[in-house]
């Protein structure tokens, strides 16, 4: 386990990725590590309002001589993310990371996994793709969005997927790019055509994750789902982000997750 650190970080770059999404590069004063699927809690203002940090899945960590650079992909959905979109470059933010449990990449490396990202669910999937590519593990990457303009980081995803000889499958709900329909429908089609994925790593909206879980249970695959829950602390003490497991226990997504094997989750996650 990588030790968590609460750091003052500097906002050094921001890039628009779509009409609503952007990337942030944060310079840390020391080298930090993270596993794909882990997240950080980032301040989204300079005072007591907004009060709480926001959780963001880590999209990548690059070590450097002066300290690591952490990349986040953010969708503007409320006050905190609106502030992040307008914060001046050079601003100092507080970042607590790495938190939670990520994907089981060792297990994923045993076979050729499917990686599935919907909309702003891309960051942990992108991080996993990068890490698997570094390890020389092949995979197919399914990247879906509502419309072409909301498909994030397509060329980057293509480069990583090409490097491992995998396929990048793009889908849009409205058919404006790639295959028309849900990203999970594309997963089912590949599976029906005989492509075997022993494991699927997924992050996206809840209905997408439920569809991934359904496909996995039918295909006999293991699904690892990165869940999103409202959370105040990110460190397991507020108990705001609990997720119900198949055994009835309610566990903090920030600590036992945010990545869970679908088979461990309560029935409504496995329709």
């Amino acid at each position: 386990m990588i030790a968590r650190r609460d750091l003052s970080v500097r906002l050094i770059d921001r890039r628009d990725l779509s009409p609503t999404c952007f990337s942030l590069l944060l310079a840390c004063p020391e080298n930090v590590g993270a596993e794909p699927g882990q997240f950080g809690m980032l301040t989204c203002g300079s005072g007591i309002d907004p009060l709480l940090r926001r959780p963001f899945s880590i999209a990548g960590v690059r070590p450097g001589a002066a300290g690591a650079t952490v990349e986040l992909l953010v969708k503007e959905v409320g006050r905190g993310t609106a502030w992040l979109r307008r914060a001046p470059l050079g601003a100092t933010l507080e970042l607590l990371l790495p938190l939670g449990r990520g994907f089981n990449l060792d297990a994923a490396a045993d076979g050729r996994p499917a990686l599935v990202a919907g909309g702003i669910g891309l960051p942990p999937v992108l991080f996993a793709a990068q890490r698997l590519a570094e390890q020389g593990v092949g995979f197919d990457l399914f990247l879906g969005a509502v419309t072409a303009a909301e498909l994030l980081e397509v060329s980057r995803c293509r480069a990583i997927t090409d490097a491992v000889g995998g396929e990048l499958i793009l889908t849009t709900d409205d058919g404006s790019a790639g295959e028309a329909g849900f990203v999970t429908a594309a997963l089912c089609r590949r599976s029906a055509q005989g492509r075997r994925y022993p494991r699927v790593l997924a992050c996206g909206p809840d209905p997408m994750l439920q569809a991934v879980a359904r496909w996995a249970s039918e295909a006999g695959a293991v699904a690892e789902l990165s869940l999103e829950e409202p959370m105040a602390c990110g460190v397991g003490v507020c108990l705001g982000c609990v997720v119900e497991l198949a055994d009835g226990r309610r566990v903090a997504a920030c600590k036992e997750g945010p990545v869970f094997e679908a088979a461990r989750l309560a029935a409504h996650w496995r329709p």
Partner: protein
Amino acid sequence: MVDLAVRVGALRLANPVLAASGTFGYGLDLVDLCPPERLGAVVSKGLSPLPRAGNPTPRIVETAAGMINAIGLQNIGVEAFCREVAPELASRGATVIVNVFGERPHEYREVIERCERVDSIAGYELNVSCPNVDHGGMEFGHDPKQLVALTALCRAATQRPLWVKLSPNAPHLVATAQAAVDGGADALTLINTLRAIAIDPVRRRPVLATGYGGLSGPAIKPVALRMVWDVHRALPTVPLVGIGGIDSGRDAVEFLLAGASAVQVGTAIFRQPSAPLRILAEIEAFCVSQGVEEVRSLIGGLQWR
């Protein structure tokens, strides 16, 4: 060098900053970011005789300079705490106050009786003010008659310091405080969260699954401060532990001046897990800047006129 030690009744604390119940887990969750032994004390998550699953989600929502929660006292139960958590807290040298919760009076007593078998537990804080459960909690804290009886029942079970955490939602704050003292409380913690709701205007539904929750954070600080002051004025000899929106050393000093002998930091921990240590350092810096040599000299020092 500022002398940070304070007393809450007979209980001596190395410093006046405590981690509040429900915001610091069982005391060991944040050891890497905020070592519990460096705090005046840690107050455990509310413990009941048996584990509780808590409320459905959503349980939390952010509001202006605050948040509303309805966790519903999810906890591991007193047995697991005493067996698995308390020994390590003791070996670290942390001062531990157990926050006690029950749906019925005898359950409060059961929790205390179990903890009495653990030497290292310093005292108890009765939760009679949780706004987020159907039974227990606030219903005891709102009725002085029930509160006297409940406090007396617990008093009979322990010689250790016994605090009662009061509800800001009770109709008569001072009468409630008096009731806890009459029942044998050594000190009063105030305040718990303020009953609140948040509404999603698009769905036309409450945001939280339970509808109601408890408001905490800087938004409630002025109310908490007023309540500490009111109780201190009415019952000047009763030790108080102040809590409500404390997020800085100055906030903490204000509570001490209003009559609190110590303070609890809660929601600020969610913002910054090491907040209690920062606040303690800021209290010390404030004392240095004001020429205050003993932090306890601030207690009740408000000059009203």
